[in-house]
Each structure stands twice: as structure tokens, then as C-alpha cells.
């Protein structure tokens, strides 16, 4: 019986040693690497402009940013407003320059004369 207990003890010792050895080996196999990503700038939230209570009696600028085909889309949109919301005035304008360029003159005009904008940025 004494012999059996000794062998059991030795067996348990060997098993636990192997477990510790394998675990530490697995830990050793783990590595840290450097993150390849660059630094994005912080995002500063911009609140949306206050909305209108109603579009009745208002002037809405429809701005074409010059993707081909947009003029037909906005022509149809203007017709829809004329048929369904005749109390609303729409003004179609094409932005100056290519679609990447800012057009501060147009934005100033809209701020002065318009109440809302529909901007066509797709194709």
C-alpha cells in the first residue's frame, strides 16, 4: 500500500510538472507586436443646423455638385415640389468648380436668401 501511495504521489507530481512546463511554454510563445495604424485626428462633433417648423412659404436651394446626370434628378425633384407643395419655392443651382471645391459665395447667398438646402452628392 505504501508503495502504491508513493507511485501515485510521483505520478501526480510528474503530471503537474508537465502541466506547469507546457503552460509556461505557451505563455513564452505569446508575443506582443507593434500596432501598424497611424493616428487619426480627434472627432469634434458639429451640431446639425436647427430644423424648420414647416417648408410652407420657404425657399429651398437644390444644389447640384456636378456629378453627371444630377441635373435630370433635380429637375424631376423640382417638378415634384411644384406639383405637391406649390407653397414652397425651389431654386436649382450648380456649385462652382469641381465637386471637391468649396463655393463660399454660393453658401453666403443661400444663408441670405434661402431657408434650407437639398444637396446632391451622389451619382
Amino acid at each position: 500500500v505504501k508503495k502504491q501511495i508513493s507511485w501515485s504521489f510521483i505520478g501526480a507530481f510528474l503530471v503537474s510538472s508537465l502541466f506547469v512546463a507546457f503552460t509556461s511554454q505557451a505563455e513564452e510563445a505569446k508575443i506582443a507586436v507593434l500596432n501598424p495604424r497611424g493616428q487619426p485626428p480627434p472627432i469634434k462633433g458639429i451640431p446639425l443646423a436647427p430644423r424648420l417648423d414647416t417648408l410652407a412659404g420657404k425657399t429651398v436651394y437644390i444644389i447640384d455638385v456636378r456629378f453627371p446626370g444630377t441635373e435630370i434628378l433635380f429637375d424631376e425633384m423640382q417638378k415634384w415640389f411644384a406639383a405637391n407643395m406649390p407653397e414652397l419655392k425651389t431654386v436649382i443651382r450648380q456649385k462652382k468648380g469641381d465637386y471637391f471645391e468649396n463655393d463660399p459665395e454660393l453658401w453666403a447667398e443661400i444663408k441670405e436668401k434661402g431657408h434650407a438646402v437639398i444637396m446632391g452628392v451622389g451619382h
Partner: protein
Amino acid sequence: MGVPTAPIITDRFVGLVKYKAETMGMPLLRFIFIPHPISGQPHSLIRERVAGKDLTTGKPVMQEIIEALTKPLSADEKNPGYIQRQVPRLVGPDAPENLERLFLKNGWTDGLPIVLPTEERVAAMLQGTSHKPDEVVGKMAPSGAHEAWSYTVEKVAVNAVMAGCKPEYFPVVLAIASTGVISSWSSTSSQASMVLVNGRIRKEIGMNWGIGAMGPHNHANATIGRAYQLLSRNLAGGLDPEKTYLGTYGNNLAYNNVCFAENEADSPWEPFHVTRGFKPEESVVSIFGGYGGHLQILGIFNVEADWQKQLIRVFEGTATSDSILWTMDPLVAKTLSKVKGFETKKKITQWVYDHTGWPAGEYWSYSTNLLFKKGPAEKGVEPYATWLKVPKDTRIPRVVSPDSIHLIVVGGETNSFSSMWNWDYKKSASIDKWR
């Protein structure tokens, strides 16, 4: 502007505009998505789309427009907050195979195996430059409409390790990164870049300018070009389909951006970097970008008859762009210089400028010219302003000036082979500055 706005875009670009709105600080911008495409569609179909539904929400398009302009703002729309985006320096620890999977899953690789950027490997790469790891190299954006990210010398080294570069290549990779030019501009037209190396570093790092220079036959050419692609992906957040990459069918050249060295010794003309104003002894990298479409001529200059006609046809066959890159084997350059009488680059570029062109009406029928050139033309930018005013059948030049025809000599003289590429010259940068 402070005026309520309803932005409309076709539903193929949902990912792009949501990403852009979020990064520009307006994550809740009230987009209306109309079915794609609009361009080139019959009038009747566009009318149906206006009267129809936004397929992403199931609501009528016009109802969404009205709601976008009149529905009261939510608390989050009034105060979208501030987000500081921190990028941790380390990833892991984890088993290498798990890290490789993570890099792949996160879109930090091109899908091919990478070298994991351990501290030791990155430290070894940093030995390739005298610059400090925390020095800011520059900023880069996926397009003119995207935000720009910044990056340090260490971040560039991480990407150079991933691409398999040796430390001695690192000044070239840093010079590329310093240009701030992304390798795959986020255009729907599937863009890539071309990387040209001039000067003594070509020999020092064993680059190829002879047989197969533009192909997968040289370690420096291959890994430097790949590092450019990986750093554009990781340091600028670029090349992410739907968000920061929109090329409709992509571009295989983007894997390593056709990186090669010029065959300066066998060229009868000054090397490209000298044409751009650098000294012959300087080491310089130059970036070209665009669609990369190209047409070839084989052995044309061995044939006496009609070589000019054939040359003009190839130049006029390439898609419309402001400039053309003309790569040629030394055999072609020598023939042009010594047999055909074009002793200088200036002479041959002037000849091409004078002899190639197309009717103004045809030029203004291309959608890219309507999109990118008509606006500047209307604002008086030359030569487009003049080209817009002339009658439709007036012949206008193929490129904007003789200087916008870029000549590069490369190859191993196995064929008098040359190619005309749709690449625009972007920028050159000193490599010596980054040693």
C-alpha cells in the same frame, strides 16, 4: 452654413458617406439614399426614383427629404460630442498565428502573409535611419475629401517590417511616406501608383532597373512597393472598401505599385530626378498615380515606315488625362536620341505635344473631363478655359503641356519596347534626407 440640409446620395455609397459623416463630426447627418445609379439612366427611370422609395429605409424619398429638413433635432444631433481616438502602441501578447489572423481580420494587410512587427524587428528597421522613432513624418488622406492621419518614423518602420523590407531600404520607404501621397487614391476609377527611384541608393540597396525591373524579380523593388501599399492602408486608414477605397474593380498594380529604379547608365538623356530639378548625385523617389492603364509598342523604332504614325496612335489611344508617363527600354531611347534626332527630352516631348490631340468636342464628351475640368474651365483656369471656348471640331493637344509628358528609361535591352501609361506625376522626395 447653419442652414438645414438634406444630403442625397445613391445607395451604392452608404458606407462611404456614413464613415465620412462620422469622421467629420456629424454622425447623425440625415442622408437620403436614392437607388444607384443616376448617371447615364433614362429620364423616365430617374422620375420613378424621385417618386419612389429609399431602399435602405423603405420610406418614400420625398417624404424623407421633407422630414430631414423639418423633424426636430434629437439631443445627440444637437450635441454630437468629442471623440479622442487613441491608437495603442502594442497589440497582444498573443500567439503569432493569432496575431496574424487578427491583422488579416482587421484589414491591416493586403491578404498576403506579413512579417509580424515585433519590437526587435522594428528596432532593427529603425537602424536604417538617423531619425528618431517619434519624429512625425507627415500626414496622408485616402482622398481630398477624407480626413488625414499622421504618423511617426516608428509607424513607418512597423509597416516596412510587415512588407519584408531590409533596414537599408528604410530611407526610401520614409521618403515615400513623407510625400503624403496615398498609393490608391479613393476614386471609383480603381487607382494605383508607380514608384520610381533615382540616384546612387539604387545600387546601394540592389534595386533592379534592367530585365524585369517592373516585375516580381527583385527583393528591394518588391518590398518597397509593398511597404507603400501597407503604409497607405494603415497610416492613412486607406484602402478600406466602401469607406476609404471605391475603385469599382480594383487594380492589381496596387499590390506593390510598380516600384522600380531608372536605368540611368544606359539612358542617353538626363535621369528623371534631374529633369525635376534634383542634382544627379542625389537619391530621389518619385510617385505617379492614376488608373495605370497602358498601351505598348513593340519594336516600332526598328521599322522605318510609319513609326511616327504608330506612335501618335498609341498616345491618342490612351484614356484622357492631363499627362502621360512614357516608359521605354534604353534601345528606344537611344534610337530616338541618336537615329531620329531627339537629342534631348525636351525635343521629343515637344514633338509629341505638337503632333497628338483630339477634337475639343470629343474631349468635352468624356465624363471625367466634365466632372473635373469643366468647373475649372468655367472659372478661367487655363488651358481648359480656352479649350472650352473653341469650336467642337478644333483640335486640342493630348496633354496640357510638353512638360506633362514624363520620360523614364528602364529595361534590359531585350526588346525595343515602350509603354504609354495613364499616370499623373504626383511628387518627388529626397531619400538622402531620410538616411
